[in-house]
């Protein structure tokens, strides 16, 4: 695998052994990660798993208790100021000024980064964001989707090399989410590195690489296919009648680790293939129910990881 180990210049984020505690509770534990330049790296994990804390440590908003690393080649502990100049950070909660207009917010950010012609830069960004006609509207009066676009615009205004997006699409409608992801891919195509945290599976699937983090530990990382392949999960997709009854009958049986309804079908998964097969063997004969062996979905994999990690770390 040494051939694929990227050289230093190709790596945007390279951290080792990051730990952070708040009030005696360890939120991030011995976290290491490498993100190649130009990739979209998804940070997936349940609430409170340490995603936000990790992102904040990367951009210098929090100081790690232990561990070290570089961000865009700069030392995270020593060069926070240099990192800040080249990183765009989009906070989980809208954190631009609600009582400033769209234009005023963008001009403020442009000036902070020392952009030469702040007005022109802001005007350009308004056009790019499709916010024409709304530039004098107060940011606080925008809808969720527009706020999110504005926030993305603000953190890309200075042409950063790295974007840190903390649950950027929370509370945004599907259309706006799709537009948002198209924009992210367009930015990555131009060489920008994007680290994005989310707990939407469809968004995870849009990332080049993902890391699943729970209780402050990275449980698995790689491309979506790699992550699915790494899990030893066997999954059957069941379609037919009376799935609710079937679901209740399967839960807790030997070999069955997960039963989850997906619309009109049911996903039945287990780590131990033989035990799973043994349990479902009599049920497969049932009339009106169709069983099909299938790839586990990313969600199946994550839910399974989450259940397992709960036993390990809590």
């Amino acid at each position, binding site marked *: 695998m040494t051939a694929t180990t990227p050289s230093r210049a190709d790596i945007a984020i390279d951290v080792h052994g990051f730990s952070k505690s708040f009030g005696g509770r360890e939120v991030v534990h011995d976290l290491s990660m490498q993100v190649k330049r130009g990739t979209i790296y998804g940070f997936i994990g349940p609430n409170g798993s340490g995603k936000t804390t990790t992102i904040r440590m990367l951009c*210098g908003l*929090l*100081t790690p208790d232990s561990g070290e690393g570089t961000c865009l080649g700069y030392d995270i502990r020593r060069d926070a100021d240099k990192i800040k*100049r080249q990183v765009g*950070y989009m*906070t989980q909660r*809208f*954190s631009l*000024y609600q009582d400033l207009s769209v234009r005023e917010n963008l001009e403020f950010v442009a000036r902070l980064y020392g952009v030469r012609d702040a007005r022109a830069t802001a005007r350009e960004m308004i056009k790019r964001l499709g916010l024409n006609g709304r530039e004098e509207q107060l940011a606080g009066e925008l809808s969720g989707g527009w706020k999110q676009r504005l926030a993305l615009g*603000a953190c890309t205004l200075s042409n950063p090399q790295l974007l840190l997006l903390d649950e950027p699409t929370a509370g945004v409608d599907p259309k706006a989410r799709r537009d948002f992801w198209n924009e992210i891919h367009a930015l990555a195509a131009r060489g920008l590195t994007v680290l994005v945290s989310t707990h939407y599976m469809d968004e995870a699937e849009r990332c080049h690489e993902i890391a699943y983090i729970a209780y402050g530990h990275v449980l698995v990382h790689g491309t979506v296919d790699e992550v699915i392949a790494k899990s030893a999960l066997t999954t059957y997709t069941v379609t037919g009648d009376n799935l609710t009854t079937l679901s209740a009958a399967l839960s807790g049986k030997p070999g069955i680790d997960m039963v989850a309804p997906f619309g009109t079908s049911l996903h039945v998964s287990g780590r131990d293939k033989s035990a799973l097969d043994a349990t479902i063997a009599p049920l497969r004969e049932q009339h009106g129910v169709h069983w099909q062996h299938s790839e586990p979905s990313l969600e199946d994999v994550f839910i399974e990881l989450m259940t397992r990690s709960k036993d390990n770390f809590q």
Partner: protein
Amino acid sequence: MSDEDNRADMVAEGIPERRFGFWRRCYAMMVKEFIQLRRDRVSFAMIVMIPVLQLLLFGYAINTTPRNLPTAVLLQEDSDLARSVLKALQNTAYFHFTREVHDVTEFDDLLLSGKVLFGVEIPRGFERAVRRGDDPALLVAADATDPIAAGSALSALSVIVQTALAHDLFVGDHPSPPFEIRVHARYNPASSSRLNIVPGLVGTILTMTMLIFTALSVTREIERGTMENLLSMPITPIEVMLGKIVPYVIVGFIQATLIIGIGVILFGVPLLGSLTLLAALSTLFITANLAIGYTFSTIAKNQLQAMQMSIMFFLPSILLSGFMFPFAGMPVWAQYIGEGLPLTHYLRIVRGIMLKGATLENLQYDSIDLLALMLLAMTVAVTRFRRTLD
């Protein structure tokens, strides 16, 4: 069936408990408020601090009939009588001789800069004139800009000196002292308290408004969540501070212009000194207050705490600065506290320039103190400013 079962049944059946519902909800609210109050350490401290500390502080410090007022002596003659007179003055406890000067210029300078409140001049040939029965004049010059401070000492002056001298002099049967005490109420001959209050109000109003402007500035950003975004961008604590203070310097300058303008036009307060100097030092004072407010803002955890700190600062500013009560009348420890407040220095500056026509030279120490307080506050603010969310 026990009471509890009864209650459970009622809840289960969804019957509202009409009789006790009101009180129960009030009780729930009270319990919650108490818990929150207990967790808010600063508020909790304020409950004890504000009444006890302030009462002790102000109860001991404030004195409306001040004694031991700083007095300069210009002794043109060194005679037994002159010394007796001075001793008698000192014995009244109103006058405390802090300076002995040798010429009139020095005498005037001390009064002008506010270092002394009184000046006593014993003219050449005083004793001889008394013995001859010429009724010579003993000059007592008073800084009357603060009529309260000067008033009680002056009103007691003739009577006390007379009784004190009665046994010293060989004129026991004389109904009045064999010399005239000529009181010279400088700067405010009519002892109009308005002349004193209006310039004082300039400083007090500015203290209040300026403090509040900046005291909320950082906490507001934290509470609204904008701080996280701000900190992730390349801006330094000094830049944040100056950016937040400078706009309000202009606001404060407009306010000061308004108040001083109204004082001059409506209340007839004179402006004897240089307007430029007044404007420059007022700007310094405004900036010092903004810097202190900003410092509170970097220490406070939320807007409520910032407001509480401002009030804690504002109260002594009013009471210990010489605005409400004579500064010279306070005990020494209270004067030390007063020296740490920008308002104390600004009051001397604004009264000095408006009422006495003082120059920068007269006011240099107060100006330097103001500058030092401002820089101190700014240093604390920049050091205290949290660059991370840790």
